[in-house]
């Protein structure tokens, strides 16, 4: 949302055979969405810094042998982008199936059933079953906070909560520990959420969480709905110089 300055250049590129112009510095994902071209994402959220973790927004760029994350790749002059192909579809399905196999996403008994971005993504990508064996790991549930809950079973490690906590609320209570499949969201120095001295209790993390991992307590199956509209507004207000 930065103001257009004299250094901003106009760029023309092709996305899915459509000639498009945009400003320099814009990412493929931003430009695609501005032009009603849908690229699936889970970790991206407008108003937060780019994470590039979920890899669902991978696109093909002509003359490049590898795939590129649309959220983290700036448009360049003359670039030719393809946002969907049999190869991309196959990888996207595989990624979401692996998310389902990695932890315990039991949609039928989840508070976010019917309002979950992971569940919706599976439907959108026509995933009717998971080809990988489920791991069924035993995961922690942090129930120590007065009115919020972290259920690691349902976390996909998109780190939206970590970013909103650090970047928007400015508390940086949340972070990620560990590596690979052992990664997990923590509070402060891996302490119970309810004991955190830095958490302001604002609840932004709950609202940006795409699944039922972060929820309000006292919600039953399907009752947890999230609101993310506040984010672009808060980000814009921070940039306005009075």
């Amino acid at each position: 949302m930065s103001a257009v300055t004299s250094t901003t250049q106009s760029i023309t590129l092709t996305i899915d055979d459509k000639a498009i112009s945009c400003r320099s510095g814009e990412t493929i994902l931003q430009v695609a969405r501005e032009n009603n071209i849908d690229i699936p994402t889970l970790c991206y959220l407008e108003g937060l810094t780019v994470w590039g973790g979920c890899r669902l927004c991978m696109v093909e760029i002509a003359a490049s042998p590898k795939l590129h994350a649309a959220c983290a790749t700036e448009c360049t002059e003359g670039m030719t982008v393809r946002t969907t192909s049999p190869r991309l579809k196959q990888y996207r399905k595989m990624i979401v199936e692996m998310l389902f196999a990695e932890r315990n996403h039991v949609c039928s008994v989840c508070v976010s059933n019917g309002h979950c971005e992971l569940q919706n993504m599976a439907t959108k990508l026509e995933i009717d079953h998971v080809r990988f064996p489920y791991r069924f790991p035993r995961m922690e549930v942090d129930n120590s906070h007065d009115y919020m809950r972290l259920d690691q079973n349902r976390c996909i490690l998109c780190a939206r909560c970590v970013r909103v906590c650090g970047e928007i609320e400015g508390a940086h209570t949340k972070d990620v520990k560990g590596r690979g499949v052992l990664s997990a969201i923590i509070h402060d120095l891996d302490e119970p959420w309810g004991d955190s001295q830095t958490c302001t209790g604002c609840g932004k993390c709950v609202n940006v969480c795409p699944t039922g991992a972060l929820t309000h307590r006292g919600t039953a199956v399907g009752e947890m709905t999230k609101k993310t509209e506040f984010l672009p507004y808060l980000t814009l207000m921070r940039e306005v110089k009075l």
Partner: protein
Amino acid sequence: MTTTTTATTTRPTVATVWLDGCSGCHMSLMDLDERLITLAGLVDILHSPVVDPKEFPQSVDVTLVEGAVSSEEDLHKANVIRAHSKFVIALGDCAVTGNVPAMRNYWDRSDLFDRAYVENAQEPPTAEERKAILPLTVVPPLRPRATPLHEVIKVDLYLPGCPPPADAIWFVLTEFLAGRVPNAMSVSRFGK
């Protein structure tokens, strides 16, 4: 009556099986309501929790399987189903993902048994009594993990949902009877 008998022999045959599930998928099948009468005119239901024959038939055109594979008996049934069915449909989230029955997989079987039969007993059993209490004989033994159907047999079509709506079951069955392989994800999803 003769004409009915002749027609019966040429009609497609259907079986439905209830493994480790809550029967909700079969309830959803019952929710076809008056369409059940239409269905009865289109197919022969040879085997199901809602019809009499106890043995799985020699040959079935399409079998709908509800439930996860939890016990050795479930595994045996799954293998019989596969061997005797031309087309197997995993019906509902338990058969497709493991769902609620697979939530026991986070714990070891003996811990589960202790929780259910020992810790919650009014008087703690002795080690000898414990052996007698645990469901290790007579009832089919639990497998180490409850798994989706496709982890033990080949599945031809997946119809997720908890439960899959009656309209989704109707869509899948009628598409199948029309000789098409339906896209189940156009009518159902994981969870509700």
